[in-house]
């Protein structure tokens, strides 16, 4: 962070790198939980190997993946419905400008124009959804249309277009699949532990010491798993927010407009009631209000879907400075 501020492109490649690191850690963590389950409880890999494959790992990933895939297919419709979003007709003079701005950003991103929705809520906010750029939707609140200038509206739409172009909806589905797998393994693991440790004794292939230590580490990981998986998921979400900010700035070549839009959104104190918690990671700013995202601090930062808004504004101003 020291020295010259990162430009639009450096910022994006740094965020992409960070996403890869966190996702790799996530996959390794799920792998450790799963193989531990297979080794310690089902006896995979022991002399009297019950099964030749790590069944629990594969099953957990399949089930997690299946439920997440289901969510992806029906996701856009249910997310829009739960937020009370209404289609914004292009002929309506009130939404002409919004449609123009969305089309401008679609052209800049080189993707088809997403469907446009309006949420009847006075608080300024916006989100994007849809499984790929060809099936994307962008929803903005009435408050956003009322309070932002054309340039700021364009910047917010560009941020959402960034989420669409970067396949963030798909990435967060993969994250949801991993969380699903973790939940399944934790549930099964805890249940089996309670009934007396499965086939653990017969599978102590490394013989005593090493195996026992590994088992204790695995048990601790299992207990902390819901907590750790949430931390990793939120870390991914925050990287994608930074990335969408930088992508939006790349599309408009106007980082200052997004900075001033964020300032206005930050100044609006009310939480966006229409947008439910599950959609939070796709919004321009946390719809739950400033309770977590505003309080800077180590622990608060770790559990937030969005990075602190002031930090985002600072980075955007740095990009504007580099761009000028």
């Amino acid at each position, binding site marked *: 962070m020291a020295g010259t501020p990162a430009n639009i492109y450096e910022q994006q490649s740094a965020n992409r790198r960070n996403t890869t690191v966190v996702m790799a850690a996530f996959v390794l963590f799920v792998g450790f939980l799963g193989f531990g389950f297979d080794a310690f409880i089902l006896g995979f890999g022991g002399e009297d190997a019950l099964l030749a494959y790590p069944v629990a790992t594969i099953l957990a990933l399949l089930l997690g993946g299946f439920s997440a895939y289901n969510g992806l297919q029906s996701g856009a419709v249910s997310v829009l419905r739960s937020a009370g979003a209404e289609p914004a007709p292009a002929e309506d*003079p009130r939404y*002409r*400008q919004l449609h*123009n*701005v969305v*089309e*401008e*950003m679609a*052209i*800049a*991103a*080189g993707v088809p124009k997403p469907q446009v929705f309006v949420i009847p809520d006075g608080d300024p906010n916006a989100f994007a959804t849809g499984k790929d750029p060809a099936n994307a939707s962008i929803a903005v609140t009435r408050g956003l*249309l*009322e309070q*932002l*200038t*054309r*340039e700021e509206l*364009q910047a917010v739409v560009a941020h959402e277009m960034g989420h669409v172009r970067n396949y963030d909806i798909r990435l967060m589905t993969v994250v949801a699949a991993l969380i699903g797998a973790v939940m399944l393994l934790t549930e099964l693991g805890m249940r089996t532990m309670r009934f007396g440790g499965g086939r653990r004794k017969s599978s102590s292939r490394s013989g005593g010491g090493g195996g026992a230590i590994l088992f204790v580490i695995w048990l601790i990981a299992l207990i902390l798993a819901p907590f750790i998986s949430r931390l990793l998921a939120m870390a991914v979400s925050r990287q994608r927010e930074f990335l969408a900010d930088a992508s939006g700035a790349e*599309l408009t*070549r106007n980082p200052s407009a997004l900075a001033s839009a964020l300032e206005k959104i930050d100044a609006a104190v009310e939480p966006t009631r229409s947008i439910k918690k599950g959609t939070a990671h796709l919004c321009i700013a946390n719809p739950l209000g400033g309770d977590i995202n505003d309080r800077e601090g180590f622990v608060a930062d770790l559990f937030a879907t969005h990075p602190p808004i002031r930090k985002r504004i600072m980075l955007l101003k740095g990009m504007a400075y580099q761009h000028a």
Partner: protein
Amino acid sequence: MSFFLIFVLIVIGVIVWAIAQYNSLVTLKNQVANGWKQIDVQLKRRHDLIPNLVNTVKGYMEFEQETLQKVIAARNAAVGATGVADAAAKEGALSGALSRLFALAENYPTLKANENVKQLQEELSSTENKISFARQFYNDIATKFNIAQQVFPGNIIAGIFGFTPSELFEITDAAERNVPQVDLSLKK
């Protein structure tokens, strides 16, 4: 024997690489063509909107006949443009003429208050934006295409199959470079 096997593997590897290179060049070429089409669509839209705008403002701006004439002349020249460089120059001149018209319109409060004119202005300024974003996308993708043709070893494949660099859509008109900063955005 094992030497022969290694040789075959290397040949297969080179062929696979060449196919991948060729395919990515073809993909980029199509994206460039598509990017150009996007610009074209927006330019056409602008050409269609201008007579509308001129007709609407004519009554209000009778003392600015010359400016209106210039816009119409620039528009007609732009409609007849051929090729990237020619289009870029003529569209640049049109943008310059239009922005002068918009700057003058600021002096006519009744004109600015007209709902019809307001909507036309939003449409035109959005079209201007779309043109510049389409140009930005086109130039980015064309630059990527050109770089892919020039860097080693991709240039070998580009040379064999006769790929040629794409022209960038550059602003050649000095007038557009110094567009007066007029904020025509309609505040909601």
